[in-house]
């Protein structure tokens, strides 16, 4: 079975507003729900905004963009699961 692709809403569907060092507020236009996210969730959404990625490709993308030499695959899987749970990304 192929690795699942994770898909995020396109940029025009999210209103992203960093509030302070810790939290980013995101308004999801499709649902009207406000989300309050901590890193790396906003970075994951940004990395997935252009095109869906597998978890491995996403990890590479985050590692390159944010200089994460040893991105933990289990932690990333947990963050992805949380974002799927709240409806901000989709796995297919």
């Amino acid at each position, binding site marked *: 079975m192929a690795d699942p692709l994770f898909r995020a809403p396109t940029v025009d569907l999210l*209103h992203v*507003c960093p*509030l*302070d*060092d810790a*939290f980013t507020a995101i*308004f999801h*236009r499709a649902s*009207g729900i*406000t989300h309050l996210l901590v890193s790396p969730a906003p970075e994951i959404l940004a990395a997935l905004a252009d095109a869906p990625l597998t978890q491995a490709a996403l990890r590479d993308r985050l590692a390159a963009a944010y200089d994460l030499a040893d991105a933990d695959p289990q932690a990333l899987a947990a963050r992805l699961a949380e974002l799927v749970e709240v409806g901000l990304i989709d796995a297919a």
Partner: protein
Amino acid sequence: MRHSLAVRIGPIGYRIGADWRAPIDRLRDLYRDYPSADVPDFTVRLSATRPWRRWIRPSVAIAGDFTLPEAAPLPLAQALLAAEMAMNLQLALGGRRHLLLHAAVVERDGQAVVLTGESGAGKSTLATLLAARGWRFMGDEFALLDPVTGLVDPFPRLVSLKNGGIAAARAAWPHARYGPTLAGTPKGTIRHMVPDAEAIAAMDVPATPALLLFPRFGAASDSRHVPPSEAFVRLTQASTNYVALGEAGFAALTRFVRTVPAMAIDYPDGDAAVAQLEALWAMR
């Protein structure tokens, strides 16, 4: 409605109708310095819970476009409180022109301090004490945040003083006009106070929000910074229409918390709170 009154409080126009003359006469007197509402935004009805209850143990039900099913009827002697609650409810649930935050607001030099907190945090008392120290009273119930301008519009309704706040306000404003003392209400003892003439005269003058405070009564004086993310969460909870406004509310609130510094203050009494606020104001 047999008896009615139209009154404008800042940008909000009300028509208040009642089955009885007395509460409307009382409201008309207390609101006599306010302009009339040409086209009311909200209509509030104080009606008898049953037709015969106009006369026998008169009991007031609150009605309007919005009602709370669990809102208990109040005895006629508490009709002023019923009117206040109904006016708040219509705005809280129906207002769409502003992001509504449960807060008192005072202003100086065009800049506003927004004091938010639960009922009992001392918002009304503090706003009254600050007004006696030269601040402009802009409201004790809702901060009306304009999503377009980012300014706070005044909502200087009658001040709703409760319990210990009544004596404190009377000491600060001995010559103000007051409504009757309403004892034994669901909120304790209530007394309404007419805001000072300056507050009413300036009810169309907005202010730039400059300081957000989360006051808490009953502890030794203390203060701490509140980060924007915490202020955001607490204000979504303090807003009655954040969800209803959708993205406009999100944009207004994120702009507010990112531009307005926020502090939580504990205070043992009104004088201490005023001193704390003025010190923070000087340092902002």
